[in-house]
């Protein structure tokens, strides 16, 4: 009797999990398969037709898309925004994190609390004021403007995470280096940065994906002649229904980099997400 119940429970559990797995798999699969169907086949019926007729799959949508300057250009723009915004956040965040962890100056503790407070400030609050500011200093609709904005909003988390990580470094290590006559900059680059590697990697992956995937900030601040891929695709969504042959492969091209990063650096990504649970 008990064995029967246990068996029924285990079967139910598996059925539930398989159904859930389908719920998570099918939406993405649908877009992936659609991206390999010709416009004619897309109009003729659902993407699932290709499951029984795999010969219909074609890479022609991707060929068209890669020949389309707007989309390829937008991918370049995305890289041009995401890479500097990540490097800047890592650099400035590590410098400030080190100062908060190991340098002594008046007001250190309350300044750090202010930074912690800024963790949850919504990006939306800054859209209007910063567009005024950027307008006044000529950064509106420039890549530099978008990079600076992303850097500023990435900094509270970067400083918070790195300060906490750097603070765990044993004091004796730093004292020993100081006694050897190392200056702060040398200490920072030779002792703190190497030891902070894991935290910096997590933060870098987190920030890179954050900026790569952003649409709102780019929508407001990016150069409308060279929009990043999210904005370029968003402009296509208005026509949804008769341009799936553009949207589906476009969305997949925009997902390739985040997915590669995700699968390659799963552990760091998870660490970053867990540390970012306060954001």
């Amino acid at each position, binding site marked *: 009797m008990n064995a029967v119940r246990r068996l029924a429970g285990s079967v139910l559990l598996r059925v539930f999990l398989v159904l859930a797995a389908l719920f998570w798999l099918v939406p993405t699969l*649908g877009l992936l398969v659609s991206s390999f169907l010709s416009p004619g086949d897309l109009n003729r019926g659902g993407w699932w037709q290709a499951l029984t007729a795999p010969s219909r799959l074609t890479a022609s949508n991707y060929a068209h898309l890669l020949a389309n300057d707007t989309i390829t250009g937008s991918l370049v723009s995305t890289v041009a925004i995401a890479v500097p915004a990540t490097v800047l956040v890592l650099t400035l965040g590590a410098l400030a994190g080190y*100062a908060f962890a190991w340098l002594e100056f008046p007001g250190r503790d309350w300044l750090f609390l202010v930074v912690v407070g800024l963790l949850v*400030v919504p990006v*939306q609050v800054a859209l209007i004021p910063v567009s005024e500011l950027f307008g006044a200093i000529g950064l509106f609709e420039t890549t530099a403007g978008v990079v600076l904005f992303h850097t*500023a909003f990435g900094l509270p988390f970067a*400083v918070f995470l790195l300060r906490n990580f750097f603070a765990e470094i044993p004091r004796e290590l730093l004292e020993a280096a100081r006694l050897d006559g190392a200056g702060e900059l040398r200490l920072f680059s030779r002792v703190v940065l190497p030891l902070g590697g894991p935290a910096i990697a997590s933060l870098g992956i987190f920030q890179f994906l954050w900026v790569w995937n952003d649409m709102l900030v780019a*929508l407001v601040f990016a150069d409308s002649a060279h929009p990043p891929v999210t904005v370029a695709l968003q402009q296509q969504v208005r026509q949804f229904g008769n341009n799936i042959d553009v949207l589906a492969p476009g*969305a997949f091209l925009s997902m390739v980099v985040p997915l590669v990063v995700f699968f390659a650096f*799963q552990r760091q*990504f998870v660490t970053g997400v867990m540390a970012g649970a306060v954001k």
Partner: protein
Amino acid sequence: MGSSTRAVRDTPGRRAAARRRLVAAAFLLPALVLLGALVVQPIGFSLYRSLFDRSGDTFVGAANYTAVVRDPAIRTALRNTAVWVVVAPAVATGLGLVFAVLTERVRWGTAFKLLVFMPMAISMLAAGIIFRLVYDHDPHRGVANAVVVGVHDTFAPASAFPKARPGRDSPLEPAGDGAFVTREPVRAGVPALLPLVGVAPEALPKGARTAAGARPVPGEVTGTVWQDFTRGGGGAVNAVDPTETGLAGMRIEAVKDGRTVATATARADGTFTLPAAADGARLRLPASNFREAFAGVEWLGPVLVTPAVIGAYVWMWAGFAMVLIGAGLAAVPRELLEAARVDGAGEWQVFRRITVPLLAPVLVVVLVTLVINVMKIFDLVFVIAPGAVQDDANVLALQLYRTAFGTDADQGLGSAIAVLLLVLVVPVMLVNIRRIRRGASR
């Protein structure tokens, strides 16, 4: 004397302190300048700007804030944001908890976790496009409606003649519930005529042939059900003309005193045969012949759009909850669970009485994170909700964008919405600060 010695002794110390401060400033300044200019200054500016009108020249006091409460569009946004905050984090956390607990019991749990966590890596835009396709109203494109229509049609098959109806002077009359019935009883040996009109030529059933007049058969009720219409003119009303088509597959019931005594299905040429029992009955064409094809659910219509977008959000964020809760679960002492099981507690009791209470701190962190996240939700709604229903799907962050950067931009009102968003996250800000302070003083 004394003061001068101290001065002499202190100079190097003071110089060192000044140097230390300078070094600290050099390390801090780049970050602080950016934070000050692009995060702190905007908070002040938003507060200030929200007190001025559209042009920014006229002080209007709290008028923008009263407009936030009065404006119907913003009220919809507020209401939807409230729905989001109540529903989305709870559902995502609940699913995350269930997944985290259950995946521990199957061998492919890791693969499952990876699958559910993956959407965290992609952009809300990509997720939006994915779900725009899932929710497409056309069941030949959107998988959600394909499933709904498939299940529906299994239990209530679509009919072949949704638009068919009796023509002028027809021997058929409506029976009230979508069915049609003959005005007069039929007789065995006298072919019955059941003419209908209104079926589009391309909607005629496959295999339907030219209609034929039924042959009289003694002792049986025969007849023809056909499309009584000759394309291009000609053809008599209520007569089977040479080019008219039989309505193959039509269900016919013989009804006597409200009871169905016999049934038949029309052949390819529209003819049918009923047994002698049908003699004296009235012939009825039941409503199932005429039911409109089921078109599925309008996921992205005004009523369901918010739940639909929340569904997409849960798809993206349940993995986040699952991973955090999974990490918390790994820290739960196994002996505790085993002890409870040995004491005879069922799995459900172990889950409810031990696992969930032990996980409470993690659950709170996950919920709070998701609540903050949901308050700022923008991309998913912007991408999934079609233009026509964006007013119905509106949320605060979307309304802010539309107010401040739309065609009829009003940055005063936009700033008021921004301040409202900020006020909503202030409690979390204070909790964060308190947590850090407690940690620092320890």
